[in-house]
């Protein structure tokens, strides 16, 4: 009697788990099949198999331009965020005054609601003519992704044995050499993971882009936002599928990075 009950419960658990999982990744179940339908209207399931949407998308200059700009901004932002993040994490190992306050300050871009950051930066950067420019977006995204890099790298640094660096220094290596030859390789994985996080966050970042990106420097999320709001373009399911694919690739990359043992 208990056995049957336990089995029933177990079955219910699994079904519930599967249902919730489907709920979480509903886009994959809907947009991917839809992307292989005609580029005219959105019906599900698509009436016929077609790669029209993909063809249209690949020939679309404006969409590729948006992808290029998002890519540029994401690469630059993640680079700057990683460099600044590493420097900050290294700095935090020393005895600095008000460490708790500084910590909170560095995490704050993650805490402050994006709309506030977006509007504040829009107002501020317009004074320097940086709105709707790639540099403006890079500045904004660097600040936004910095906390994530700091969190990731500091986690790696926590497990770092300082005696290794000490040993190198006593053997006569200069601070630069110690950093590049001993410290950096040990935090490399954390740094790369942080850089990948920063890249992903910047590439998909929408709220700040809505305000800082307009006609010249239009990012992919801003273009998608305009499209979904004002004029749903037929290539959206295909574009979504491609983005989902990239998300999966990034995930695999992160998984590979976390598996690599030294």
């Amino acid at each position: 009697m208990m056995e049957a009950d336990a089995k029933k419960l177990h079955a219910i658990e699994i079904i519930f788990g599967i249902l919730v999982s489907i709920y979480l990744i509903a886009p994959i179940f809907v947009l991917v099949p839809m992307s292989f339908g005609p580029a005219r209207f959105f019906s599900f399931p698509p009436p016929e198999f077609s790669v029209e949407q993909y063809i249209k998308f690949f020939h679309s200059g404006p969409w590729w331009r948006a992808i290029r700009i998002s890519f540029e901004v994401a690469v630059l932002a993640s680079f700057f965020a990683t460099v600044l993040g590493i420097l900050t994490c290294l700095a935090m190992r020393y005895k600095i005054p008000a460490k708790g306050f500084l910590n909170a300050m560095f995490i704050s871009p993650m805490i402050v609601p994006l709309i506030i950051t977006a509007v504040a930066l829009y107002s501020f950067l317009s004074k320097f003519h940086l709105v709707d420019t790639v540099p403006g977006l890079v500045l904004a995204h660097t600040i936004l992704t910095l906390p994530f890099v700091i969190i990731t790298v500091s986690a790696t640094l926590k497990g770092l044995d300082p005696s290794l660096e000490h040993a190198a220094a006593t053997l006569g290596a200069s601070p630069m050499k110690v950093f590049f030859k001993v410290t950096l390789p040990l935090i490399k994985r954390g740094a790369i993971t942080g850089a990948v996080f920063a890249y992903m966050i910047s590439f998909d970042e929408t709220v700040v882009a809505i305000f800082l990106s307009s006609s010249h420097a239009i990012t992919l999320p801003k273009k998608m936002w305009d499209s979904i709001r004002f004029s749903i373009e037929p290539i959206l399911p295909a574009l979504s599928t491609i983005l989902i694919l990239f998300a999966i690739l990034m995930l695999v990359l992160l998984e590979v990075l976390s598996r690599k043992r030294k």
Partner: protein
Amino acid sequence: MGKKKISRREFLKGTAAATAAAAVGPHIFVRKATAASNKKLVICSYGGSYQASQRKAFFEPFEKATGIKVVEATGPDLAKIKAQVTSGNVEWDVVDIESRIMYTAITENLLEPIDTNIVKLNTIVKPAIHKYGIGNIAFTTALTYNKKQLKKAPKGWADFWDVKNFPGPRSLQDHAPFNLEFALIADGVNKDKLYPLDIDRAFKKMSQIKGNIDAWWESGAQSIQQLTSGAVVMSSAWNGRVNVAQSKGVPLEIVWDGAAYDWDLWAVPKGTPRKELAMKFIQFALDAKRQAYQCGKLIAYGPSNKLAYNYIEKARQKQLPTYPDNLAKQFSFNSKWWQPRLNKLNEKWAAWKIS
């Protein structure tokens, strides 16, 4: 010992240089970009099929004739124009704006006066001539419906409010102008006796239909899309865009009765570095044959150049807002009445929407 000192200083120097470069670098890129900008003209319009028609009739020919690149932008809202002009950083050289936007921009001192030495106005219809803007097209905002979605054809705004006989979700533009007039017409007010608007009565009538509005449209393309996809059965829409959709086989119809008639105008934001070029473009775009191409072949709006009608087919003229039969059924949108009340009514609209 000596070695350590140098390497540490160098390290610090390197960091300092990197930070400085990171902070200053972007500025340099931007300065370079703005300096090399005189070979272009930035024009901002309403996007979608309307802007596509302008591209074909004006932008591309202008590029061919002058060698100057036309850079397009969409979304000519007052907020952005004001932000550009007051910050001294004008990005848009020419804007295409609706009449009430122009009147508001004038009170805020945001526009350049039209240079009548460059822009010749002798064949432009009088209602299109203003000191700070010249009408380019007369457009109609009308009740539009999807023939396939409704069993009966609606005949006017009263039917828009008649949910029983014309069931289905509706849409309207997400702002107060035009909608208040439509509401009053639906409530029985004679279309020629609308102004001054009875605001309370209009909002009361709007509240009757609010629950049936599925999503409010913000762009011309969106209004057409909602109707085409069947997300809504009736909406307000700009007649030219409807006409373009019809030519593509979409089963949409407009109702001229109780529709609103208004002007779109070319204007030049104050302080643009390419003012003369902007004026030259406006002169170019007011040409009779070019307007006739746009309105006669591409999108069914009424041209502002009297002579353009000589080049538009009679059958086509019947589809334009300016055709006498059509004109008689519409009311003229009174942007002069709206301009001083725009902000207040926009706020009231926002409050009403979430109540």
